């Protein structure tokens, strides 16, 4: 780190020297001073690496999210409330609850995911950062992937943290907790990836979530089926490896193909 800094400073000096003739040509010396505050990695050959852009987008978006934390918390509270409503609706008998727990948790997770989904691109669309993202000198798919990763970190990780609580509230037998958690871990990237497609298509419309849910929920049916099947298999004493592998495959497929669709969708939306 310190090594990098000193190198950067050395370059500043070198640049100040090369900039000297420019400074005399410029109307104010102040501008020249300002220009020297920036270093190029190599004179006139700055390098824009994909990895760096990817990291920068993630860093910026996490920082933005940390300054509006209530947006992150609300879907989580919604999830908890929906989970609370089920025992009230179907009765608190532990056998009923335990049987429907996996399905209820997953359906609730899908619904709560729909709530906060628009965040992926909505704010960026409004303030113009989305346009700037499309104008970055790296593949758009890469920037989109960064947005998907950020969304997953901000929405799925909190859900993963409170999963034991949800399982507890719904009397899910303890031997299935691990599998439920695993389904959420490998299944939630699908939510973020498919969600990004839906939001990319609808971000320029001021229609809100209903349309988004209509577009996305049918596409997420396989996820729900595989996830609940995995938990049920565990409860029945069968290996959940099959459905888990299916979720994994679906997840890999979604995350790799979604950026292409998102890119096409954003092109339509920024017009």
């Amino acid at each position, binding site marked *: 780190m310190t090594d990098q800094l000193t190198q950067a400073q050395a370059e500043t000096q070198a640049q100040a020297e090369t900039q000297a003739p420019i400074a005399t040509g410029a109307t104010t010396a102040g*501008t020249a001073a300002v*220009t020297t505050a920036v270093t190029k990695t190599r004179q006139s050959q*700055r390098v824009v690496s994909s990895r*760096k852009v990817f990291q920068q987008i993630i860093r*910026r978006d996490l920082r*933005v999210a940390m300054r509006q934390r209530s947006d992150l918390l609300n879907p989580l509270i919604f999830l908890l409330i929906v989970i609370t409503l089920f025992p009230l609706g179907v009765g608190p008998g532990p056998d009923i609850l335990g049987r429907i727990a996996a399905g209820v948790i997953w359906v609730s997770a899908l619904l709560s995911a729909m709530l906060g989904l628009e965040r992926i691109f909505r704010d960026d669309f409004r303030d*113009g*950062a989305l346009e700037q993202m*499309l104008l970055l000198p790296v*593949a758009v798919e890469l920037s989109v992937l960064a947005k998907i990763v950020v969304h997953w970190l901000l929405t799925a990780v909190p859900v993963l943290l409170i999963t034991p609580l949800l399982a507890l509230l719904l009397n899910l037998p303890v031997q299935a907790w691990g599998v439920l958690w695993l389904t959420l871990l490998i299944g939630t990237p699908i939510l973020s990836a498919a969600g990004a497609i839906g939001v990319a298509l609808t971000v320029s419309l001021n229609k809100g979530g209903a349309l988004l849910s209509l577009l996305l929920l049918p596409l997420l049916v396989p996820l729900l089926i595989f996830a609940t099947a995995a938990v049920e298999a565990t409860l029945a004493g069968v290996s959940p490896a099959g459905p888990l592998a299916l979720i994994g495959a679906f997840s890999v497929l979604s995350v790799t193909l979604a950026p292409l669709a998102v890119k096409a969708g954003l092109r339509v939306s920024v017009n």
Partner: protein
Amino acid sequence: MLLQGRELQSVRGERTLFSDINLDVTSGQLWQIEGPNGAGKSSLLRILAGLLPPQHGAVLFEGESIEQCRERYYYDLLFIGHKAGIKPELTAIENLEFYAAVEGLEFTQPPYELLAQVGLVGLEDIPAQRLSAGQQRRIALARLWFSQTRLWILDEPFTALDVSGIALLHERFQQHLAHGGAIILTSHQDLQSMSYPVQRLTLRYQH
């Protein structure tokens, strides 16, 4: 030839905004796109920036279609549109650091002088959303002071700026042109009195 527009046409809904627009931008040139509201000035800029596909025609960067050399083009393009891309939750410095980093640059120290240059002294640590429209605009335009890109496409850069801000921007334009850069902008301002030559392209409102 830095940037060329060839027979560009844009259609919005049923209405043809413009057609057969040709544009040759060489380094050292400033192009001002003029025309009444609704004539398609912003659309032309967005087409040139590759954000909007033209209905007909092509945009070439150094002789190559911008779709073919997308990454090379965007490496050398700075576009500031109507919406400037400043995150309201972040401070001026955080915003600028991001845009410097994705251009492959790095601030060795927080760019206080730069902010002082554009008249944002003392506002470095305030989230952009608490600043006025003009101040937010200045954050976006501050990118011009460190950007190493050769081509700037600016949509109404003078809006929401005060007299000193406008003078500052003119000065920066002049430097950029003197270093072989090129600028395409839309503005209602009369730029003819400036010390640098201005090429003009006038779009007419078409029914």
